[in-house]
């Protein structure tokens, strides 16, 4: 323990210099030097060997269950904060193996969840949109009472049953709605974390954006101040936010696929890159 070493150093210095003349100035200089060396030692140890100043007896350490859970999630979603990272060789090898299995699994899972959520969202959107349409266009609704000739010959007749059926096949959720949804989620997360962690809104939204785009710098992470209130719960909440947000993004990808492709094709044709009968890329 280096601290004991420093203390011993100081005391032995004092004993030595006490015997000499003008020991006060000499001693002051020596103390100065010792303290500065100690500071450099602290810094070097922190940087190189990742010691974060916590001693074994004091706290639980960095790798509690909650932070390890968050760590595992950041590995499989490839976010990779890095504020906790394995330092032992075994930890690193296991991380690699864990990632090789976990990343495809997570991708598969997210795709599936995205599909399910997209279907549900389309249904919901269709119902809401249709409800609005139905109430708006009420006067147009006609019901011909079972007259076979008229029923066959009249394509303009829209009965109540037909209207909900038609949109079910051709529901396109507009891209702007999906973007709005994602932005709202980022903003909601920003507000939540800003409230909990005493961040400002910009920092909160910066964190949410960097997390949801799976960039994951790790310079700011909620729940890292282990002395703060409810640190473990914050980490778990962060993990939940993450997973939910990625599912949301998967859902939006699913919803806007056709729309984006069509728009790209349109853009390509406008720019003259793409011929009418060709497909881009």
């Amino acid at each position, binding site marked *: 323990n280096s601290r004991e070493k420093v203390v011993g150093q100081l005391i032995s210095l004092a004993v030595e210099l006490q015997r000499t003349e003008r020991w006060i100035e000499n001693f002051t200089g020596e103390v100065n030097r010792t303290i500065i060396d100690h*500071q450099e030692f602290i810094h070097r140890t922190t940087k190189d060997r990742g010691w974060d100043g916590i001693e074994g007896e004091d706290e639980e350490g960095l790798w509690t269950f909650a932070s390890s859970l968050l760590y595992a999630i*950041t590995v499989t979603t490839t976010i990779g904060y890095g504020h906790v990272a394995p330092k032992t060789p075994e930890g690193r090898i296991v991380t690699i193996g864990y990632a090789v299995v976990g990343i495809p699994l997570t991708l598969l899972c997210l795709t599936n969840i995205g599909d399910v959520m997209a279907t549900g969202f389309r249904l919901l959107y269709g119902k809401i949109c249709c409800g609005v349409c139905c109430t708006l266009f009420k006067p147009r609704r006609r019901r011909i009472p079972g007259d076979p000739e008229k029923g066959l010959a009249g394509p303009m007749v829209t009965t109540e049953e037909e209207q909900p059926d038609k949109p079910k096949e051709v529901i396109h959720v507009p891209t702007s709605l999906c973007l709005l949804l994602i932005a709202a989620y980022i903003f909601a997360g920003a507000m939540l974390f800003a409230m909990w962690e005493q961040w400002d809104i910009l920092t909160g939204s910066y964190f949410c954006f960097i997390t949801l785009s799976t960039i994951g710098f790790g310079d700011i992470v909620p729940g890292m101040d282990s002395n703060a209130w409810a640190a473990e719960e914050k980490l778990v909440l962060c993990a939940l936010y993450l997973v939910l947000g990625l599912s949301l993004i998967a859902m939006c990808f699913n919803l806007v696929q056709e729309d984006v492709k069509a728009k790209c094709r349109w853009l390509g044709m406008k720019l*003259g890159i793409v011929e009418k009968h060709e497909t881009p890329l």
Partner: protein
Amino acid sequence: MGAPRKNHPLCRKIMKILFSHVGLCGMVILYCVAGGFIFEHLEKNNEQQICYDSYYEYIPMENKTINSTLKIFYDYGGAVTTAETRELMIIQLQSILQTFRDNTLAIGYDGRSCNLYGKENGPVYEWSWAGGLMFSVTVITTIGYGHIAPKTVWGRLVCIAYAVLGIPLMLLCLANIGSVMADVFRFIYAKICCCGGCRRKKKDNVVKMKHFDSNKSRQWTVDKSNIIAEDRHASVSTEFSNLKSRSSTGSMDSSEDRLDSKSSKNTFGIGKVKIVPLNVTKKNPLFMNDDSDDEDDEDDLDEQKITVPLTITIIVIGGYIFGGAILFGLWEGWDWLQAAYFCFITLSTIGFGDVVPGTDFDNPQAQGQLLLGSIYVLFGMAILSMCFSLMQDEILAKARWIGLKLGIIDKETED
């Protein structure tokens, strides 16, 4: 729709160049280089400012610690040598040093001379151009190391905008490059794989032709192209196979002569009329089974249906990681496991940032290391994209097979 084309042919040409394969790559590289400059400009001054701030916070604390230490010694006067006083002093000194350590870590000042930034013997800017370049690359590939991250308000806003534009651009470029490289790889693989296999088949053809010649039918045109072009008659192919089998056994009888004359009449008549160019032969599936197919014909057909096996793509990825591990291990002085760990974490875009090349700023080659790191990342992403493109069909087929085996998927209804 036609009007814009007529009015701006130059514009259209520029757009076409921009979005071609080379154009996309160029755009990504330019985007990264520009990002390096942008972030360097935004964050460099702030880095020095942070240093000054922490320095001014640290110095009073250091002085206080020194004074407290000295005070302890003065209090006890000359009685340093007695046991009890020594015990007390040790306890007090320890607590002082502990406070000092906590404060040092909280302030985060590491003893560098802030006014010497960028000068000789002074600390090296983390946000140099190369550092900014590495940062930009990690943003648009979503790796996101975080060993340097923007701290200014503008830096963070620009980072968000940079990501929103850059990530789709990068994905587009990767998709493009992936498919191009996959085609090239398949082509090379086919050539290497087929050359070994096709040489054998060529010999068989030669042997059979020799038998033909010895079969005396002068009317046979042994020109390969013409024979292959006769796709009209299945009988011709059956004659062919009959003759083949007979030639392999080496026996010749009168029936053979009869067949010869009959078929030769057929084919010769047709052969005279029809002179089919060689490239037509490529589309004849009938002759796929015949060994007498043209060598090029077989090559092309094989190319179309060739799938690079899964093991080869995995070997490619593993090889790239291994190569990178050796390279960075040598240049950065890491041990092998650390370097391999870095390569894997980077290429999977997890990107912890605990191990990053070019961050050891005592090393004068730090800038070059950062540059090499960025290039490694970009190229690695391209190779990964190519491997995904190659693996797709294989993986789908295998997943379907597993699903069938496990009974998840019915034989009739496959998803």
